[in-house]
């Protein structure tokens, strides 16, 4: 049976939540992110702000210059998390195979649910309907035979879109799109392809595979496979994952250490929460660092004991980050964090000494998790990241 994969992507998620909570903001350009007086960056620009050139990860001061009448709001991560939990609960009603990509994005494999729930296109429409009914938020949804195509489809008719790609129409949809729509092809890759007179996915597809392999190696083969609409990656829910990670590609390279640390802390908090949700602990922390020229480094560190404690994971991630930054800091295009070496509670070596500090951290995580699940967190002010620049309201954690 051909696979049916759904990609759900919430529309301008942070901005949409703000508009939901404050209806008077509807139709206004919103910039959500750090304090413009500091070195804050834009986390989300609402659709109304985008025609002015405002983009996420842009310095807030630049965005305000581009769109001076925009309403600037602080990030209320707690509230977004709360709605995100609600949305994931909805997704999990449709399939056990839900793979979270970030706070507002997920893949579902509904191949095996179609007999029960109807065709994938119908499931996709139901997901959109129920999300809207329960949260009053809109999602753009893509349905396709694989992850790459599903994600591409959800992006085609934003906002509130539903695009299905079938095995029959895959080339009709893919061919006219620019080659840069391919996962893994950024500005630098696109330039390389232009040298071969390749601008669209269709042109790429028609090139001989061998030529791409000879010229670009694995990357060339990867692009060619995707251009033909082939992608075998499975949808892996956290509970079955060998690793749990999160990464973010910035629209522009980020050169601010503090911003990168804040992004990293965000990743660590999410990953730690997902670990705990599955009752897993991780032994290895890996950072993925990509420069503007697409050079990608990974740096890993293995802990003596597996952990699910946010603080321990954060210390480790920060050590790796600082070691990298101290030696070869360059602006980053992508920053990711992955926890691997996963295991459950069983088989865990118990400790001899009542480590008060560790106990305290575990209790802290438990408390923040349960608050997040039920009410949303009031403010996340852990550590040096997500600094004052990002939170205007007083920390109450």
């Amino acid at each position: 049976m051909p696979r049916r994969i759904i990609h759900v992507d919430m529309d301008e998620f942070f901005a949409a939540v703000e508009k939901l909570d404050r209806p008077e903001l509807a139709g206004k350009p919103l910039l959500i992110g750090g304090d413009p007086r500091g070195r804050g960056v834009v986390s989300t620009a609402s659709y109304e702000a985008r025609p002015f050139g405002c983009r996420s990860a842009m310095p807030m001061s630049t965005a305000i210059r581009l769109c001076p009448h925009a309403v600037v709001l602080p990030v209320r991560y707690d509230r977004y998390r709360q709605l995100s939990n609600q949305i994931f609960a909805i997704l999990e009603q449709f399939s056990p195979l839900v793979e979270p990509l970030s706070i507002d994005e997920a893949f579902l494999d509904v191949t095996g649910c179609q007999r029960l729930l109807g065709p994938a296109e119908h499931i996709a429409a139901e997901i959109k309907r129920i999300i809207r009914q329960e949260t009053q938020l809109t999602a753009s949804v893509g349905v396709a035979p694989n992850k790459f195509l599903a994600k591409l489809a959800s992006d085609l008719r934003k906002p509130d879109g539903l695009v299905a790609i079938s095995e029959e129409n895959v080339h009709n949809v893919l061919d006219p799109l620019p080659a840069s729509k391919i996962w893994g092809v950024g500005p630098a890759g696109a330039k390389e392809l232009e040298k071969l007179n390749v601008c669209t996915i269709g042109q790429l597809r028609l090139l001989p595979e061998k030529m791409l392999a000879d010229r670009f190696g694995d990357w060339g083969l990867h692009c060619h496979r995707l251009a033909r609409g082939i992608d075998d990656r499975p949808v892996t829910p956290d509970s079955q994952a060998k690793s749990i990670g999160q990464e973010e590609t910035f629209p522009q390279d980020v050169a601010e250490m503090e911003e990168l640390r804040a992004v990293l802390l965000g990743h660590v908090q999410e990953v730690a929460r997902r670990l705990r949700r599955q009752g897993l602990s991780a032994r290895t922390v890996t950072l993925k660092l990509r420069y503007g020229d697409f050079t990608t480094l990974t740096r890993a560190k293995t802990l003596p004991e597996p952990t699910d404690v946010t603080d321990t994971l954060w210390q480790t991630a920060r050590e790796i980050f600082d070691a990298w930054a101290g030696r070869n800091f360059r602006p980053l295009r992508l920053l990711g964090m992955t926890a691997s070496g996963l295991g459950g509670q069983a088989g865990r070596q118990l400790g001899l000494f009542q480590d008060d500090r560790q106990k305290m951290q575990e209790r802290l995580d438990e408390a923040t998790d349960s608050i997040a699940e039920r009410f949303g967190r009031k403010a996340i002010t852990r550590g040096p990241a997500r600094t004052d620049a990002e939170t205007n309201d007083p920390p109450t954690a």
Partner: protein
Amino acid sequence: MKVIVQTAALAEALALTGAVVAQRTPKPVLQCVKLTAEKELLTILATDLEVGCRYNVTAVKVEEPGEALLPADRLASIVRESAGDESLTLLTEKSACVVQGAGSRWEVPGFDPAEYPAVADFDNKPDIQVSAVELVAMIGKTIFATAKAHSHYAISGVLMEAAGKKFQLVATDGHRLAQVKAGLSKSVASEISAIVPAKLMAMVQRTSFGQEETLELAVRDGKILVRSARAVLVSSLVQGNFPKYADVIPKDTNRKAVLKTLDFEHRIRQAAVMTNEESRGIKLSFKSDRVNISSRTPEAGRAEATCAAKLDGEPVEIAFNPTFLLDALKVCSAEEINFEMNASNKPAVIRAGGDFLYVLMPVDLN
């Protein structure tokens, strides 16, 4: 400087001092040993700034007193390749140091001996006097349990405690704890408690001593010094807090098994075949007359082994990292051990030979 030194004596000296020299260091002088020749004695000094060693070679003829600073690994290679020569001649010439064997000659660009850091000498009264053989045995029973990974406790060394005629070493890595006790022939003047880096303890272990040799230990100014007939070892102590280890030694246990050490060790090895990095535990099921030892890994398979045991108390199932068990059984040097437990999630105790105690935490069975 000009000395004629017995090759074998020099080789022995370099085996110990070479172990102190820093492997990787930005300072070239720290990769050297310092030779000082005076009064029919060649002293070889080595330090990595943490641990230092001062070794006296007496099988030497000093023709001209003086000093030299030489790369340790080069000198060791020269000595190794000169094993056939009865003696070697070391002399300094202008800025180089020359080593001469029978039909061989090496010239090593020397460093300025004045650049070498000072190494404290044993110039006071000893605080503790202990038989070398006994101390080495005690180190063997504890050093393996020191923490290799970073901890906020100061557990990268061995805690050495002395009071009156009581002397003991304790080491832990947070999961298991080894304690060994001994009696001193002379009381210590005042109570001593010091965390000695594992590196120094390992140095003491690899030093060769005479059967009857007594070691002198002194603790002062955040340092420990150990003096034997030939060498003085010195190290900074580990700073920080050793955990309150006495609190984790169970006072009462409701189950006690007696096991033959070698048999138990053998059976654990058999059962541990099916453990791997992810699933490190082996399960011990204690019955009245035996213990069944098993391991299971989803991919690898399962293993079972049975060992005779006399259990006093209710049957119990408890799991451990087999390495932690084997570490203790290997060193306890007793035919039989007592294995004491309370519950599957509580610390267990191994007692052996009257002087050795080992507390280990189980692996979570749930």
